[in-house]
């Protein structure tokens, strides 16, 4: 009986954790009831998205104005202006990571290393569709988004790149979708691609994504980088490279870079990005044209394009940000280890004494001889 009671308590507590771990429950789908509007300090709408927004999220607009969300009120995200951002790849900077870069300078991976590799495409939300063309915003397991992925794949192939396009369904469009697509990403990564794109569509009014680029009616593309991700620096650098090339060659195509809370499985690879191609209210054909234009910038960003860049040479090397991740891991390990040792000994004095005597084995559980 006692055991049963304990299990009941465990179940109740687990459910509580589930509820506490989310801001809103019972929201299986993307925001069908609306979307967030980002407002600059003057109250002007700078960006709209159906992705969930949190305080601290950042947005780099078309003109490279950099904003950060400071306050959320219903569907409004109030932002502070952080100035214009440079799209040049960020260096590793200071801090623990810099020490690793100094000690192991060979770690910076040349982009030339990605030559002869394929580009991988997959769709976490495989139901996403375009209402005017597909008849519905969501088609279970076979959304119109697959056709947008196919359009991107075919353009990349025409440009001479290898492509691995996964049409694995990760539906239903629920919270486990990213856990399921993580397995697809892992499988795609075993084939060692040069870059990997999770192709989505947004769910905001169509005007937000309508554009005319090179005389074609297309949809814009938003690049999404996950903030809860040890590879954020590398992923952001890749996003900036793509934006810089498109701003030059396809002005108006890139809507911006959204740094959103979450990882989006981008911790698995340096050149992993989520892209939002149009919205459910755009036609799929416009999205296909938009993604084809976007695809043209990919070889250039990977340093494998045939023609040289006009105003700025393609970057020779790009910092991956992996050392930052490793440095943070080590820092966390040391802090966590120290906390654990403190708990094991009970006092700083005792801990100091043990360290001085080098009694780690007994401290960490090995039996005294």
């Amino acid at each position, binding site marked *: 009986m006692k055991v049963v009671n*304990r*299990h009941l308590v*465990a*179940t109740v*507590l*687990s*459910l509580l*954790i*589930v509820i*506490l*771990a*989310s*801001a*809103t*429950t*019972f*929201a*299986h*789908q*993307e*925001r069908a009831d609306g979307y967030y509007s980002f407002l600059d300090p003057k109250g002007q709408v700078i960006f709209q998205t159906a*992705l*969930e927004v*949190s305080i601290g999220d950042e947005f780099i607009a078309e003109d490279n104005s950099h904003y950060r969300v400071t306050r959320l009120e219903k569907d409004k995200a109030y932002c502070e202006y952080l100035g214009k951002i440079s799209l040049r790849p960020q260096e590793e900077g200071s801090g623990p990571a810099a020490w690793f870069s100094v000690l192991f300078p060979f770690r910076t991976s040349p982009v030339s290393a990605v030559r002869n590799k394929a580009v991988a495409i997959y769709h976490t*939300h495989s139901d996403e569709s375009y209402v005017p063309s597909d008849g519905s915003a969501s088609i*279970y*397991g076979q959304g119109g988004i697959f056709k947008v992925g196919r359009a991107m794949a075919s353009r990349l192939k025409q440009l001479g790149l290898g492509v691995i396009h996964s049409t*694995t369904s*990760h*539906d239903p469009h*629920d*919270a*486990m979708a*990213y*856990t*399921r697509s*993580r*397995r697809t*990403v*892992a*499988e795609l990564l075993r084939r060692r691609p040069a870059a990997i794109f999770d192709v989505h569509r947004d769910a905001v009014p169509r005007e937000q994504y309508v554009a005319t680029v090179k005389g074609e009616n297309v949809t814009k593309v938003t690049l999404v980088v*996950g903030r*809860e991700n*040890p590879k954020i620096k590398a992923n952001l650098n890749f996003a900036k490279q793509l934006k810089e090339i498109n701003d030059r060659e396809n002005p108006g195509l890139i809507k911006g870079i959204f740094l*959103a809370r*979450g*990882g*989006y499985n981008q*911790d698995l690879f340096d050149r992993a990005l989520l892209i939002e191609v149009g919205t459910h209210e755009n036609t799929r054909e416009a999205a296909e044209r938009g993604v084809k234009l976007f695809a043209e910038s990919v070889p250039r960003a990977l340093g494998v394009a045939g023609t040289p860049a006009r105003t700025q040479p393609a970057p020779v090397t790009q910092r991956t940000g*992996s050392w930052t*991740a*490793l440095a943070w*891991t080590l820092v966390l390990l040391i802090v966590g280890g120290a906390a*654990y040792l403190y*708990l094991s000994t*009970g006092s700083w004095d005792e801990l100091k004494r043990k360290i001085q005597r080098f009694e780690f*084995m007994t401290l*960490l*559980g*090995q039996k005294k001889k």
Partner: protein
Amino acid sequence: MPTGLIALIVVTVLVYFGLAQRVLDRMHLTDKQALFFLALMIVGAYVNLTLWPPPTQLVINIGGGLVPLFLAGYILSRAGTQHEWSRTALATVITAGAVYTAGRLLPAEPGTMLLDPTYVYALIAGITGYLSGRSRRGSFIAATVGVILADVIYFVRLLATGTPGRAAIGGAGAYDTVVLAGLLSVLLVEVIGETREKLAGGSEEELYEHRLRGIQATGSGRDAEHLRERTGKGEGRE
């Protein structure tokens, strides 16, 4: 470097230097066995076995699914008592239910959660496993098998509704929720168990273990079981 791989390497280093010996003792594993399983997880991550053909496909990754499953079975087989078997089985079912339910109830976009889904499910499995298992062995088994069972539930649902799709158990290998959940559950028992012990002053625990050992030495398993029930201890220290 992906989180799962970092965690596995850190654990490998700890095991290699003998720092996780107490944990392994409680899980009835030797250092060599632990290193063997960890190596299998990393290497096996590159191989998938198809259990059910498309269009509704079920695959299991060797490193992320089969090895943790085998390890859980091995630990359980060494565990022994009927009480532990039934308790672990119940903990596993609760964990699977919690993980699956969380998947259905939580919002679809990672931005709404406190943590990224990869860690949320590992955390849910780890905490549920700990609360219902309360031992390192029980928590590890409940967390790993619980996440695997949640995938099986997903597959059965696809099959029942005739939906084309793919359930890939542990498909992300060393980066998968299965592996993270297993490691996290053991870590939770270790840290929470250690903290609780410190808060309780520590002596009661040692006294309990001392007495348990004394009883076991005299050969009365029933007395040991009785003591465990009576003191409500032991579960957190196995």
